[in-house]
């Protein structure tokens, strides 16, 4: 995806809209009023030091963290702190985790088919076709009957991506999805994400892969101390950081 796509006119209704999100764990306020909007087809990476609130923010978008205040809106589905039934929201928001979280008692194919069967109530043939398509898309069509324990970390993560994609979400959240992988396995997962980005999938990533963020993302969000303190196109943020915090962060990651 090129930067041109980011020009989805700013007046268009954003696919994901966060308004004044606040969240505390006990007495520690981890999100101090975050506003953010993601347009359809945008690829946005959230960066920042650990503890800056980026994972919490990402997890609140599909209700894994209950927010204390603010409103989350995804494609017309609203979540506010009082909301309990998150099913409608979660049908529109897929999520991939750092630890893969595949269901170990099911094969790769069954992992992908489970929610299609029990949540979307699709019939057997439709489930199977969708699962095969999703696994092929991540290059694992031949691993349909393999159990997670028989797959490498990179393959497991690709199955996890296929499992989310099969549900046809409007937006996919990726929470440090390469952080638990051996270095040689990182690229196979990133290339799947890159392919999704090129196909126009709306993606929100928390990542430490700065080169990837720079190459693939339309927009970066820099979080610090529970706030978004800078956002914009990657090149701009990396080359001309406006705040000392971002300058320090960029210096830190580039020194690595």
């Amino acid at each position: 995806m090129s930067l041109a796509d980011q020009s989805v006119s700013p007046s268009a209704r954003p696919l994901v809209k966060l308004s004044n999100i606040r969240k505390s764990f006990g007495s520690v306020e981890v999100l101090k009023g975050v506003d953010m909007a993601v347009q359809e087809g945008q690829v946005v990476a959230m960066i920042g030091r650990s503890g800056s609130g980026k994972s919490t923010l990402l997890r609140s978008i599909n209700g894994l963290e209950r927010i204390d205040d603010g409103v989350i809106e995804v494609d017309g589905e609203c979540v506010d702190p009082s909301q309990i039934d998150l099913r409608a929201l979660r049908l529109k928001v897929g999520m991939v985790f750092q630890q893969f979280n595949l269901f170990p008692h099911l094969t790769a194919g069954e992992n992908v088919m489970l929610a299609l069967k029990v949540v979307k109530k699709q019939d057997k043939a439709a489930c199977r076709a969708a699962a095969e398509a999703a696994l092929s898309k991540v290059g694992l069509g031949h691993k349909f009957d393999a159990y997670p324990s028989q797959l490498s970390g990179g393959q497991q993560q690709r199955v996890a991506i296929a499992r989310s994609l099969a549900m046809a979400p409007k937006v996919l959240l990726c929470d440090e999805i390469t952080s638990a992988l051996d270095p040689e396995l990182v690229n196979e997962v990133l290339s799947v994400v890159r392919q999704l980005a090129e196909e126009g999938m709306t993606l929100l990533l928390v990542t430490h892969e700065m080169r990837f963020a720079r190459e693939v993302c339309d927009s970066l969000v820099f979080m610090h101390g529970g706030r978004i303190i800078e956002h914009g196109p990657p090149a701009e943020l990396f080359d001309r950081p406006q705040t000392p915090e971002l300058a320090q962060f960029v210096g830190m990651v580039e020194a690595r």
Partner: protein
Amino acid sequence: MYNFTLWDILSNLLLAARWTVLLSAIAFVCGGIAGVLVLLARVAPLRPLQTAMKLYIELFQGTPLLMQLFIVFFALPLTGIETSPWTAAAVALTLFTSAYLAEIWRGCVEAVPRGQWEASASLAMSYGEQMRYVVLPQALRIAVPPTVGFSVQVVKGTAVTSIIGFVEVTKAGTMITNATFQPFLVYGLVGLIYFALCYPLSLSAKALERKLNVAR
């Protein structure tokens, strides 16, 4: 004086052992079914239900089985509910078993990693769907060895019911000893019968554990 042969003794013990087996089976099956219900209530995201089940479990874990048996056998009739030794034994052991199994299984449910809940929640699955398709199947694997291990406790627990006059293998042993004056032989045989019942259970626990681990 009548002379008891070894076969006289053994055959009578084995006849009584049927009731040990039957009582164990009833306690285990009914206790298992009740245990599942207690478990589901114990881990349900509803505070009052959790607390009530916690109390239930604590009550049965915190008092001797013998006392539970006395209460069912002697106290219930005072309230107008007649109980035979059979009913009392079955009811008391079922309640006892359900409490222990629920607690054992709760540990197994909680041993399923948090990420499994999060991943299934992200796929828009409801609590019931998560339990049924993701959490319980995994908890089941973990649960097999301790569950079968506990079934051994149930078999041995039936011995206590001899106190209220239920004639299972221990009670039969006492009665035969009174007639034969051969306690060592008789109780030795009783012990062997218990061992013959329990050892296969332990062995099958191990076999099941191996079998369920294959697909991991």
